[in-house]
């Protein structure tokens, strides 16, 4: 079984959730059946992703020929140091969100719809894994659509709790489809230029053509804009706050920690593997356009986050700002910058996923999403609030947390390049993050709990979240500390290896 998985694991990790989604959709509406099956599948997928990562570390590059057709003509799955860790990240976040989903979804989605709900969740996992693992540009589009369409459905499922989920999902649908269309137009132009859809093959042909004609330039533009929409690059992020704020809690946590990350991975792939920063137009776009938008996004989205009244919208705008950090790392165009960006991608997935889980637990117990309603949570939900605090520190970038490690890596890379203004922007936006996260913690710690949470003798009534919610939440909080203290040794290696694969020449 192990040796079979090490050869076929890459395909198995996509096929298993894809086919089980079809089964889960048909399961009878018995209390926990759909949830249990979906969670077991996610655990199996996670184990597979782990084995695949091990195999990849041993072998360097894994190429799996779908249907036995050899690339470049057949579709191949290709794993290297860049995508194997992200594969595991997506699978692990899938497991954590699904474990968390049992109490949360019970409250948010009616029984009749739970089967299709978990089926959509499994499809979303399959689509995201497929996007990351495939080596074929058109196949990327197909999986992009699989993950996005199930994502729209998942967001719309929040309608039971808040009808605004429907408009948010529609907004996401329109903008996401435009993004996917731009991406596929770009792939079409690339196909016209190179005559192949295999990404490795495209790389070789484009390098031979020394960047190619204007067709390749147009393709690059379309792909950057299309992926920019998907990963919520600053002016293209308008779908994100609504989608994150009104979808069911576990969906928010899952999408926030994986969907934009998978799109960002594709941006790495297309900017550095398929295209190459040594082509002038790529370098210009990355240095001026992407960096410019990244920095603007970091500042504006952080400020917008500060002025929100809804806690989930605050975190959503903060996500846009954090995407700015990752894009800045791309724009630096060096191994160090890319490694920082990659590290921040992983850290942010852990941190933001955890924060959304914490907010979901608060909603679950008290039905609150507004910051002003978070009063006294440190007394009524001490464990949740403690985990929230740790993760918030990590988002701000307090030392000994995950956020610190990656922000320092990014700042060092920017300084190495001589971009001191970028270091200043990282500092300033971290300070703004301190304010918007601090605002929530102030309310949670220093405001007295509302009267209905007090017992007659004046003591506070504890209403901690259920254990199934606490396990993933505390797990992610521990993880962020672990990365801050020790994990940086492992993760820095992983991110540097990834960056070296993306920039084999060592940067410009």
């Amino acid at each position, binding site marked *: 079984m192990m040796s079979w998985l090490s050869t076929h694991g890459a395909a198995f990790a996509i096929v298993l959730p894809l086919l089980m989604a079809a089964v889960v959709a048909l399961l009878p509406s018995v209390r926990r059946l759909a949830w249990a099956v979906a969670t077991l599948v996610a655990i199996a997928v996670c184990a597979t992703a782990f084995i695949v990562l091990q195999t990849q570390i041993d072998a360097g590059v894994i190429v799996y020929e779908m249907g036995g057709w050899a690339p470049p003509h057949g579709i191949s799955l290709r794993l290297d140091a860049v995508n194997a860790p992200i594969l595991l990240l997506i699978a692990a976040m899938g497991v954590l969100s699904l474990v968390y989903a049992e109490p949360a979804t019970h409250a948010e989605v009616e029984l009749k719809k739970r089967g299709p709900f978990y089926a959509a969740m499994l499809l979303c996992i399959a689509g995201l894994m497929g996007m990351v693992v495939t080596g074929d540009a058109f196949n990327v589009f197909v999986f992009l659509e699989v993950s996005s369409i199930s994502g729209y459905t998942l967001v719309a499922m929040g309608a039971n709790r808040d*009808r605004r989920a429907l408009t948010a999902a529609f907004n996401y649908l329109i903008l996401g489809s435009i993004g996917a269309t731009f991406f596929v137009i770009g792939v079409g132009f690339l196909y016209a230029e190179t005559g192949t859809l295999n990404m490795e093959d495209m790389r070789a042909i484009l390098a031979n053509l020394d960047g190619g004609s204007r067709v390749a330039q147009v393709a690059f533009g379309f792909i950057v804009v299309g992926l920019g929409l998907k990963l919520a690059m600053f002016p293209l992020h308008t779908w994100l706050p609504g989608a994150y704020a009104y979808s069911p809690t576990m969906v928010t946590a899952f999408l926030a920690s994986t969907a934009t990350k998978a799109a960002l991975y594709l941006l790495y792939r297309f900017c550095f593997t398929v295209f190459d920063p040594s082509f002038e137009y790529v370098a210009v776009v990355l240095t001026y356009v992407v960096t410019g938008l990244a920095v603007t996004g970091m500042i504006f989205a952080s400020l917008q986050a500060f002025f929100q009244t809804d806690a989930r919208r605050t975190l959503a705008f903060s996500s846009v700002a954090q995407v700015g950090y990752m894009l800045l790392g791309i724009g630096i165009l060096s191994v160090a910058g890319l490694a920082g960006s990659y590290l921040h991608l992983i850290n942010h997935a852990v941190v933001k996923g955890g924060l959304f889980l914490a907010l979901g637990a608060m909603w679950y117990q008290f039905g609150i999403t507004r910051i002003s309603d978070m009063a006294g949570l440190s007394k009524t939900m001490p464990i949740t609030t403690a985990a929230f605090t740790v993760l918030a520190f990590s988002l701000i970038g307090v030392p000994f947390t995950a956020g610190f490690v990656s922000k320092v890596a990014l700042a060092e890379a920017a300084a190495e390049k001589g971009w001191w203004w970028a270091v200043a922007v990282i500092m300033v936006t971290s300070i703004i993050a301190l304010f918007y996260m601090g605002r929530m913690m102030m309310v949670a710690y220093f405001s007295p709990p509302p009267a209905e949470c007090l017992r007659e003798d004046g003591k506070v009534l504890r209403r901690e979240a259920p254990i199934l919610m606490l396990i993933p939440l505390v797990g992610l909080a521990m993880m962020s500390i672990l990365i801050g203290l020790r994990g940086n040794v492992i993760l820095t290696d992983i991110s540097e290896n990834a960056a070296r694969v993306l920039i084999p020449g060592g940067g410009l």
Partner: protein
Amino acid sequence: MTPDTPIRDPHVILRVIAKFLIPLIALFAFYVQFHGDYGPGGGFQAGVILAVSVILYALIFGLDEAKRAFPPALIRVGMSLGVLLYGGTGVVAWMMGGEFLNYSVLAHDAIHGQHWGILVIELGVLTTVTSVMLAIFYAFGSRQPEISDEDW
């Protein structure tokens, strides 16, 4: 016939022609389906044509009649079943020792295996496409009235 005799069925021609055409449309769908191995056609096109025959039935005899002939519960099963047929072919290929969806290993020689493989997956595509087309049609056709203000 006196002038005040009620006209019992104003659409009699439509109904008779439709009853004649619907089986032909369905038959044509299967022609496209099984022709798909060698010529233009295949599961997707066939699925749409097959769904069209039901949609025509619904247009002429009403949505309720169509739902009785082709119940929504069946459609939900059909949507998943097609995916499972398609993916299941790949799983069988795995069990026979090949890569996922490698049809060559399905039979005693590669050519036969690929015949079997394409036949089964196209059947899966047909099932899913027909079901999804009908699901969309039913969803739009049986749309509830506008949401009232109290529902918001």
